[in-house]
């Protein structure tokens, strides 16, 4: 097991390196560089000569050195202007180019919102998915099962951005209710904060619950046909005991790992949901950063998310082995 973890971590190193390389150059290849935008802004307002302004801006942003040197500085293997090493390897993501504040701080501002949204929608997703998935498996090929499965696919099929829009539109037309546009901090008004997050979390949780529901159903179906379940029935145990004590425990192990699979859905979904419900989270931050060509902010966010994905997948795989003694990794 220890060898497996070490192997996985070693394999993650080239992946993360390639990701950093890809992200860095991809983001800088976006046409319409930040310097152009800034120069245009300066010409509109200021009186400087464009060429001088351009050079100063480029120098201030650290964009005047060769691109490989920029990459080296960003990663932290090439000295900065003052001769010190400060990059990702030193835990420094640099400063955002527009607001000139550390990327880590930008992310720290949006992070709690995205995290709260993500955790709430994960919980809601499981609350919807597990009972329906289990019921669907217990009553396989009945009308209840068909309805449950159709509901699961409906959850996946209904686009989040459409459902979000509908949730905004119809309550306001019918009851004159509009969700708050301003963020209510949890520390000031916990109930108001939860009220504010519950609707976006349900919309985001729908898509997740569909996946979990299907997974729960197929895992339950597999477990219910095992010999030890037959034994449990033969002992004359009640259905509740067979399902809850014997089947569910084993069926849920793979379902737990689905959290890893749900991460991209969750992250991608939060970009859209935050946009619709005007939540100033990380998802909105990245959209803004891409539009503003804020290179350091986009690359910082992308690398953080990618490393998080790698780690979550690793943790999920390890958790799987711990929870299910039959699983052995080589």
């Amino acid at each position, binding site marked *: 097991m220890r060898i497996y973890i070490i192997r996985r971590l070693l394999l993650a190193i080239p992946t993360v390196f390639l990701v950093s390389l*890809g992200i860095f150059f991809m983001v800088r290849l976006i046409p319409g560089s930040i310097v152009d935008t800034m120069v245009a802004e300066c010409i509109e307002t200021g009186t400087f000569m464009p060429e001088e302004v351009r050079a100063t801006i480029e120098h201030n942003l650290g964009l005047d050195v060769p691109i490989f040197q920029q990459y080296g500085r960003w990663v932290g293997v090439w000295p900065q202007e003052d001769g010190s090493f400060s990059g990702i390897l030193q835990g420094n993501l640099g400063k955002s180019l527009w607001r000139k504040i550390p990327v880590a701080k930008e992310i720290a501002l949006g992070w709690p919102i995205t995290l709260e949204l993500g955790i709430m929608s994960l919980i809601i997703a499981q609350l919807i998915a597990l009972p329906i998935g289990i019921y669907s498996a217990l009553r396989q090929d009945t009308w209840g099962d068909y309805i449950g499965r159709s509901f699961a696919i409906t959850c996946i099929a209904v686009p989040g951005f459409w459902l979000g829009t509908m949730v905004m539109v119809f309550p306001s037309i019918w009851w004159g209710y509009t969700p708050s546009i301003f963020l209510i901090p949890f520390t000031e008004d916990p109930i108001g904060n939860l009220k504010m997050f519950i609707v976006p979390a349900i919309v985001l949780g729908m898509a997740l619950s569909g996946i979990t529901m299907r997974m729960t159903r197929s895992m339950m179906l597999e477990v219910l046909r095992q010999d030890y379940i037959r034994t449990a029935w033969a002992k004359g145990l009640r259905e509740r005991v067979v399902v809850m004590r014997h089947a569910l425990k084993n069926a849920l192990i793979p379902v737990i790992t689905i959290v890893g699979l749900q991460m991209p859905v969750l992250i991608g979904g939060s970009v859209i949901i935050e946009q619709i419900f005007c939540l100033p989270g990380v998802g909105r931050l990245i959209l803004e950063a891409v539009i503003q060509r804020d290179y350091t902010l986009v690359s910082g966010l992308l690398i953080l998310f990618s490393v998080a994905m790698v780690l979550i997948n690793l943790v999920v795989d390890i958790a799987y082995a711990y929870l299910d003694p039959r699983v052995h990794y080589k």
Partner: protein
Amino acid sequence: MADSSSERLAEGKRHSFLVDFVIRLVKEKPLGTVGGIITLLLLLTGIFANFLAPYGVNEPTASILAPPSAQFWLGTDNLGRDILSRVIFGARVSVIIGLTVVAISTLLAIIIGMPSGYFGGKFDLIVQRFVDTVMCVPDLMLLLVLISMIGPGMWQVIIVLGLRWGIVGSRVIRGAVIGIKENMYIHAAVAIGCPTTKVLTRHILPNIMAPVIIQASVQLPTVILIEASLSFLGYGIPPPTPSWGGMLSGSGRTYMFKAPWMAIWPGLALALVVYGANMLGDAARDLLDPRLRGGVGRYGVREKKASLSKPKTGDDL
């Protein structure tokens, strides 16, 4: 149910693969059949959009923001365009994106996945690190950056989506190849001096068709949904081309309180199509994946495999 296919074989009724698949779909999977019909309807709507749509795609009429009526079944938008016609033409965009992206990504997945799985070793290790790289960047964010790199548009979306899903999908193809490459018939082909390209195309490729088809049918709804999400965020198909996602953004959101029908119908059409394509994909997986065939659970499958492998062992000897 499990014996139906073998019975048919015994009767000598042999259909082509596609016909056989459709027969089994209708017989065994009612939900999958519904999904198939929805997908077929989408395809036909996309192809015959010109004949079905009552108005032109960007044809302005006199009534602006008209609610649904006998003249405009689904209402009109802020420029006086008929929503029904735009939803119908939006189907064409979804069909084009869905089919081309799935075709590109399937081809790419085979091109990457097959050698990676077959040759294994260092080659596999290196190729898979690149696949890992693409896999671990959250898809929507990767697509946002890529699209802003090459600009929004139909072809750009097709290329970017095809690349992303092709590379990620190659993992499954690789797994399938690894699963069959130790079979006796592959060793036999190599032993009689069959060139590697021929082993790959003649012996491996036909035997991984089931996972290839399953993958393609699972990707179809995902791709359609992602295109809509991108268009919604303004990174997909630019207006005035009617994309279901794009119709929900921009003016669709500006006027959503005044004219909710502008936002309802494209989303509903999208949900219906993704629902249908998902149902079809599920049914295809159930019918084509030998591990799931018959649905009698692990114990039953093991029994069936034993009975199936009897004639095979004869060949091996």
